[in-house]
């Protein structure tokens, strides 16, 4: 076996180190370009052409996506407006491409702030699917993590851990719940800082591969951004999730009950609104999450009530009566401060 010097091979990015192969590569690329260019040029529109936007909207299924969101999410006007804008940008970008104007993908990293139970995680899940359907994400899965999944226990543990999470989220959406815990003000040697630095790097270099969503309470998020200006500047969309009104919560309750195969009787709805008004005034109210708990308790009381009857029919099984809610401790005058009150 002899050892002749091989001719420089094309292929791996690393071969660019040798100038000879770089030239060959460029020439080959040019050759390919020349082969493809006429085809590309044909599909380009002349600069005085007019494009039918409505048809393109239909083709991309944008209206379908937006109607789905409108129906499935109660309230959240800001979120819906932002989605509509993103969808519009997608359509416009497609048209621009047809005129030969190429644009970088928009920065999609987001920050969701709001009280507990205002739908941050739910929206993130929807957002992943939507961005996938709009063509911004390749796969559209959601990887939901907290500090524990990103930050390691000892020196050298954090980087591989964070990178593993990032790799899993590639092509989808990385949802970091209560992101401010990544940064501990009181301990400057905390490993969270390392994790933040890796995240920043990935948010910058892999913009096409994943979307990072940070979520948490508004005030703590502010503190977090103030101590990490790099993070703040890389996030383009700050979306606030306001607390729901009683009407919105009632509609959410309706939808949750329907999902479980129940329906409110007409009078129940009135009692439910009274319940929500009382419950909102009490501490530890968690918006939609409290509604879910209330419905769970109603199911239990309904089941107990039905067992006392001799027979039941389909309507009985489906219907939640005011009585099922009135047993709640929220309606009792002497509510103490302990225990659950849903």
């Amino acid at each position: 076996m002899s050892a002749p010097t091989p001719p420089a091979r094309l292929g791996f990015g690393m071969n660019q180190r040798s100038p000879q192969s770089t030239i060959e590569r460029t020439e080959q690329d040019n050759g390919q370009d020349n082969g493809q260019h006429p085809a590309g040029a044909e599909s380009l529109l002349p600069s005085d052409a007019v494009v039918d936007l409505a048809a393109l909207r239909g083709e991309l299924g944008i209206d379908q996506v937006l109607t789905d969101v409108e129906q499935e999410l109660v309230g959240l006007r800001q979120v819906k407006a932002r989605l509509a804008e993103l969808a519009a940008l997608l359509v416009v970008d497609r048209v621009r491409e047809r005129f030969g104007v190429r644009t970088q993908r928009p920065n999609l990293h987001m920050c969701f702030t709001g009280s507990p139970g205002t739908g941050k995680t739910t929206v993130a899940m929807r957002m992943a699917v939507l961005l996938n359907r709009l063509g911004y994400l390749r796969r559209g899965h959601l990887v939901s993590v907290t500090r524990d999944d990103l930050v390691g226990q000892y020196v050298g543990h954090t980087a591989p851990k964070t990178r593993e999470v990032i790799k899993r989220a590639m092509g989808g959406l990385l949802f970091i719940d209560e992101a401010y815990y990544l940064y501990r003000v009181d301990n400057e040697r905390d490993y969270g800082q390392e994790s933040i630095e890796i995240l920043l790097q990935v948010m910058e270099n892999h913009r096409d591969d994943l979307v990072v969503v940070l979520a948490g309470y508004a005030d703590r998020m502010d503190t977090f951004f103030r101590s990490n200006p790099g993070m703040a500047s890389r996030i383009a969309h700050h979306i606030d999730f306001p607390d729901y009104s009683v009407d919105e919560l009632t509609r959410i309750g309706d939808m949750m009950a329907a999902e479980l195969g129940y329906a409110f009787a007409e009078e129940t709805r009135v009692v439910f609104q009274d319940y929500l008004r009382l419950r909102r005034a009490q501490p530890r109210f968690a918006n939609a999450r409290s509604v879910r708990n209330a419905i769970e308790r109603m199911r239990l009381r309904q089941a107990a009530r039905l067992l006392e009857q001799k027979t039941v029919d389909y309507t009985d099984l489906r219907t939640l009566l005011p009585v099922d809610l009135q047993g709640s401790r929220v309606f009792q005058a002497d509510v103490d401060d302990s225990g659950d009150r849903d």
Partner: protein
Amino acid sequence: MRITQGTFSYLPDFTDEEITAQVRYALSNGWPLSVEFTDDPHPRNIYWEMWALPMFDLHDAAGVLMEVNACRTAYPNHYVRINAYDASPGRQTVALSFIVQRPAEEPGFRLDRHEGSNRQIMYRAHSYATERPSGERYRPS
């Protein structure tokens, strides 16, 4: 001498797009991937160093490419390969394995003959690269 091994040994080296396509195929079959590197080109050297842990639960090829590029940056003059494991037979089985980086210059091998008792000839492949200590092989001098 160009070292060849693994699944696509008869093809020219892959571009990053082609690597991505192969990784996507592996992921679509549910095979976890791992990145390995070495600077010992001997064909019997099957134990390459692992670059981090095998990557489970991935959905997208971009994550694997990220590791490949990290390994290329750390070891620009080493061989780097990607392995895909198929666990469905119930044991660790390599389903796909191919080289994604090779040194710019590969000096190749020398055949040594050793005459033993009864004029029996033993053959041995000697890699020129291994004449330098590990880590310094393939470094452009």
